């Protein structure tokens, strides 16, 4: 492992900001967000979790996926291109989130070319968390605050500088010419929270019909913040937007935009039928998606334990609490499996 001093890091980041689009944690009106920066000065290196995940970089909240140009009866279609981007200061949970998105968009045929194009030009330089926040639970979801797995390069703070862990070839090309020295000693282990037990995915269907979901959803506001803050939630909507229209010449953008399964009309089909008509059904989908559908479809949990939804939810729908409730309910049902009360809900 190599070592980089704080000063050298600043210089390096300044150069990166100059050469490519550098995205890093930056304060925007007192809110920490991953946004593009023009110099190292803007970057916040202190340990905090940006309000939004870095999902926006790989899957923007709205992006054109196709440009349509129509001249008379001649139509031409162009796909957008994407420039090189480096995300610096990415937290391991966010890198984990991007890794899950990679699984969804490029890990399975047919791949999403638009995502692939952008993703390929992105390099991830991470920053370990020295300590988990109270609402963090990445360790329960297979992560670690200093997990290098999903990065190209991971920095970990040591005295006077950072330990540089170069993970991939992509990272190596970036770091090699810095001529860094070998580090002396090991960086300290992060302080971690107690691990939550997560109910195995195959048991979740047992609790699908439980009354629990309706009761949980009673206080849900059906906003979309949990999905939009989530590093993994990837549902999107597609629509065309006219940018110019005429009989001889027209231009349209096909846009894809974030969407969320908690929205009331998310699942409504043409004609008005809504197969997920109740709040409970919609909120249940959110948790089943993360803990059952994702594992089934992508062999990977749909939650990375970043804790953002826990922090942000204004009505305290707490994913850790849900995990605990579900585990408890499952265990209870296992114990009293044959008892006549088994059909009752979790809260009964």
């Amino acid at each position, binding site marked *: 492992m190599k070592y980089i001093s704080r000063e050298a890091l600043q210089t390096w980041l300044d150069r990166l900001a100059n050469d490519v689009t550098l995205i890093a944690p930056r304060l925007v009106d007192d*809110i920490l967000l991953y946004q593009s920066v023009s110099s190292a000065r803007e970057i916040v290196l202190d340990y905090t979790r940006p309000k939004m995940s870095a999902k926006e970089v790989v899957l923007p909240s709205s992006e054109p996926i196709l440009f349509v140009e129509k001249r008379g009866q001649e139509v031409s279609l162009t796909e957008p291109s994407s420039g090189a981007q480096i995300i610096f200061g990415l937290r391991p949970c966010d890198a984990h989130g991007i890794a899950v998105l990679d699984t969804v968009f490029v890990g399975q045929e047919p791949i999403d070319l638009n995502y692939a194009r952008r993703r390929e030009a992105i390099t991830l330089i991470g920053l370990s968390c020295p300590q988990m926040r*109270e609402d963090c639970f990445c360790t329960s979801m297979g992560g670690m605050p200093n997990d290098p797995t999903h990065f190209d390069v991971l920095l970990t703070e040591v005295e006077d500088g950072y330990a540089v862990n170069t993970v991939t070839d992509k990272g190596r090309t970036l770091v090699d010419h810095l001529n860094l020295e070998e580090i002396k000693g090991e960086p300290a282990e992060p302080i971690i929270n107690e691990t939550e037990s997560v109910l195995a995915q195959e048991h979740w269907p047992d609790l699908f019909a439980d009354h629990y979901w309706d009761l949980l959803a009673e*206080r849900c*506001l059906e*906003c979309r913040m949990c999905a939009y803050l989530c590093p993994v939630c990837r549902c999107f909507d597609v629509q065309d937007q006219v940018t110019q229209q005429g009989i001889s010449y027209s231009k349209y953008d096909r846009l894809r*935009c974030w969407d969320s399964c908690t929205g009331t009309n998310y699942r409504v089909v043409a004609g008005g039928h809504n197969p997920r008509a109740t709040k409970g059904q919609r909120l249940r989908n959110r948790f089943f998606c993360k803990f059952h559908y994702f594992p089934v479809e992508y062999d990977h949990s749909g939650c990375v334990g970043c804790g953002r939804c826990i922090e942000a939810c*204004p009505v*305290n729908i*707490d994913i850790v609490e849900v995990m605990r409730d579900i585990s408890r309910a499952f265990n209870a049902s296992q114990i009293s499996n044959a008892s006549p009360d088994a059909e009752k809900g979790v809260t009964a």
Partner: protein
Amino acid sequence: MTEFTLQDQIRDRAKQLLASEQVKCVIGYEHGSRGQVRPAFIHQINDVDSLVWNQGCTHNLVTYLRDIKGTFGSDEHLQRVAIIVKPCDSRALNVLLAEKQIEREHIYVIGVVCTGIVEGAGYAGQSSDKLQTRCVRCSDRVPVIYDLLVGEPTHPEITDDYVDLTELEAMPPAERAAFWLKQYERCILCYACRQVCPGCYCSTCMFERDDSLWVGIAAGVKEKEAFHLGRAYHLAARCIGCDECERVCPMELPLSLLNHKLAKEVQRLFHYCAGDEPSQSPLATMLAEGEEFPA
């Protein structure tokens, strides 16, 4: 009177209401997963003791009446809910009553005298000793509508009701425009502000219709601005100033400023304060004798 006894009174009445089957549910507050307060829906007497009342009870529970609208049943099988309201929340009831979104006989209102809610309420580890801005300027500490009043009425002195607007109002227009654009830019269009608002009860928001002429699907600053201005205007003379929209905003947009400004102008122009009574918004009524705009 201490808060403890207010909480006891609430629990007592909730028990009575559920025991006598006067209501099928009591909407109130309980402790959340990490010490914060969260909305509670109590269906069974056994659960009543989880109801709490303290200075962290920030949520405007009236917004949940939207979800159970239409499930009340016919008059013979009247299914009522009891709801705990603070003075500010109670004004939202009046707005909904005026707009025929709820019927008075469907709800049992437990009005609580309120001494103010603290900042950071509703979020884990954020609670402070400081009162929320809306509470500092709140002059009516007694609900305007209730079946049971809990607590002793107090009448605090309020100095300047619109002090929060002063800074912005003093800015030159261009600076003001820049200020707001910077705010909108942060918006992620999660619609939490709309969803938490008791006044935003349209089944399909006009800014989210597939054929919307107002806002495209893109998440650009123009779309965000149109949404926020449109929403603020739709709430003009209807917003009761619970500021929940601002509290829930994950991007911390100062949405209450817009609403508060409109409330100020509605008061100045029409001498009307939303929620005082279950009355029509002045924007829906005719000019009074001698009233003439813009002349």
